[in-house]
């Protein structure tokens, strides 16, 4: 048995497959990122870190990193918190919870492609129902609410709504305007992600023993907030870790909304990494720069996974 090589035969298929389809492409991408190779070229030159240098110095790629970072930093916390709140609300419902679950889960089930087209119509600057709704509300309750006139420091003459009404219904072009595009995309991202997070949290909530809440009550935790702090939040630790990791990876990978709604524009404000890879490597055949972005992308994901695996994991499993 000691000298038998049989075990190698057993593990070889798995190892070989893993190398061919998982590890080799990764190293290939890494290798290409140090060259000037473009798809179809017969030769290539080693150009060292030039691709990476471009990424951190050329305006386009700096904008790419900003757009990605903005998207992740906005969508992850908001969709996680909203998901948790919705899950806790639904969990406290006696009936009707199933209907809400289905409704909130719809964006997750539906193909984003179709949904994005619906959003495009909805947010169309002149034909979309959003701007029509706003335009019809000038001077009315809608202006009061969405113009934030109810906040004491907002001047009702100078609010964005009032100004838009005064300027011949000059409402934002949402996806076509530099200062609103990324936030609109973020909004759609949240809209899409929070239903999924809610379902994960609902599963996590059912796993909390009811006796723990009763113990907390007997121990004198009177307010919902105290019980949340003492029981719900710590017991949801593993769920939260999972939800945050999954959401972060998914938001890093956002592509279809961008491809359909903005194509990275206007002026690269929504130029997220996944879309950049697609545009450079696939549409423009600039394989090497695409590979470099991919490597950076994988780097982000690896750091995140490492952080989850070795630092937070230890603190949420008891």
């Amino acid at each position: 048995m000691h000298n038998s090589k049989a075990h190698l035969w057993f593990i070889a298929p798995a190892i070989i497959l893993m190398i061919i389809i998982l590890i080799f492409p990764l190293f290939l991408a890494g290798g290409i990122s140090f060259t000037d190779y473009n798809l179809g070229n017969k030769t290539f030159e080693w150009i060292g870190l030039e691709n990476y240098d471009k990424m951190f110095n050329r305006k386009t790629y700096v904008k790419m990193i900003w757009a990605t970072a903005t998207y992740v930093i906005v969508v992850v916390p908001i969709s996680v918190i909203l998901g948790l709140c919705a899950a806790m609300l639904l969990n406290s419902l006696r009936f009707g919870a199933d209907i809400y679950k289905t409704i909130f889960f719809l964006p997750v089930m539906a193909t984003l492609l179709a949904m994005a087209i619906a959003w495009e119509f909805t947010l169309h600057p002149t034909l979309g129902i959003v701007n029509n709704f706003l335009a019809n509300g000038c001077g009315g309750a809608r202006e009061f609410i969405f113009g934030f006139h109810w906040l004491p420091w907002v001047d009702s003459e100078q609010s964005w709504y009032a100004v838009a009404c005064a300027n011949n219904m000059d409402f934002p072009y949402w996806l076509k305007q530099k200062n609103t595009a990324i936030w609109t995309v973020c909004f759609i991202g949240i809209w899409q992600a929070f239903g999924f997070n809610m379902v994960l949290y609902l599963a996590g909530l059912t796993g909390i023993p009811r006796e723990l809440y009763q113990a907390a009550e007997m121990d004198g935790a009177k307010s919902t907030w105290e019980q949340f702090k003492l029981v719900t939040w710590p017991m949801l630790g593993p769920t939260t870790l999972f939800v945050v990791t999954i959401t972060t990876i998914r938001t890093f990978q956002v592509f279809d909304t961008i491809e359909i709604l903005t194509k990275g524009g206007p002026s690269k404000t929504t130029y997220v990494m996944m879309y950049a890879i697609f545009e450079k490597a696939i549409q423009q055949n600039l394989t090497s720069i695409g590979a470099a972005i991919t490597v950076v992308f994988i780097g982000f994901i690896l750091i995140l996974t490492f952080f989850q695996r070795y630092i937070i994991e230890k603190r949420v499993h008891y």
Partner: protein
Amino acid sequence: MGTISLKNISKSFGSTQVLNNLNVDIQDGEFLTLVGPSGCGKSTLLRIIAGLEQQTSGDVLIDNKNVNKIRASERDLAMVFQSYALYPHLTVRRNLETPLRLRDYNAFERLPLIGNFSPNKKSKTESINQLVNKTSETLQISELLDRKPGQLSGGQRQRVALGRAMVREPVAFLMDEPLSNLDAALRVHMRSELSELHNSLKTTFVYVTHDQAEALTMSSRMAVMIDGNLLQLDTPQEVYDNPSSLSVAQFVGSPKINIFNGSSDSSGTVNFLNVNLKRKSSESNSDLHIGIRPEHLEITNDKDENTFGGTVAYRENLGSDIYFHVNIEDNSKKIIVRGLPQFTHQITNGSSVNIKRDSNKALLFNQTGMRIHFNNAMG
């Protein structure tokens, strides 16, 4: 003080009635056990006392104060749960501190970091530490204080759960089958420890169990509940010797009491198998159940008008006692007879034996299961 009174407590879940007009007065410092088979509503009753469940009708009085409208956290009771319900993310020390922190610190002092600026927090923290240390010494869990519940054995968790209840000196302790997750040896050991704890704390204990042995060994009084009804509330000895009904007699005592079908004639003489009892039943001319506990039957060599015969089906050796499961003539049920090892070692499965009963020990029940008394104490 720690008296608890339950007045006409009823509880139903939808159309299912789980508690039926219960009245219990629990005295200060008493160890009262609520015992009954699973599903009899005993845990529900405990949770109604705790305030975790609302009764459908009736009143709960703690120290003569009606607490119907007072929520669980304000009734000043402590509860030990079957699953222990320790906070898994907190160390044992923090678990013990939690009830004190929630009650002693005000909302501001509980805030992280800035709460430490409150002038009173330091002295409160010191008194909390002292109480935690005192409790952990009593329960011998001082060396576990820095561990988390996940790193403890079942018995240790049980102690921590007890400690969390003890640490703030409540009006009464409510315990919901606290020993049922322990292994048999530890369970027996914890029984005596709980009794000792009760003796030293002198606080009211309300203890729920389905194990009649726990009820018999620990309680000052036990309340036997079956199907949402309180059947008997008395000292363990009295419940055992003088059960009020057939169900109580069958529930309390292990092995189970033997039930014979018999009848009484016009003079009240009770007859079963071929045996006549000397005592006369107060109910004449009726069919009866006669209950005799296994330890009141013995295997004998003599055969007379007070004995009946049978065949040993199974010999259950417990070391100190041997229980014989005996098939008797014209009765499909097996009866159980206790024997002492030194006198019965030659009896094996399949042996024919004569069984003699101790006089004055039979219990009579009528067809509805109610206890019937004898007319005279003789015979």
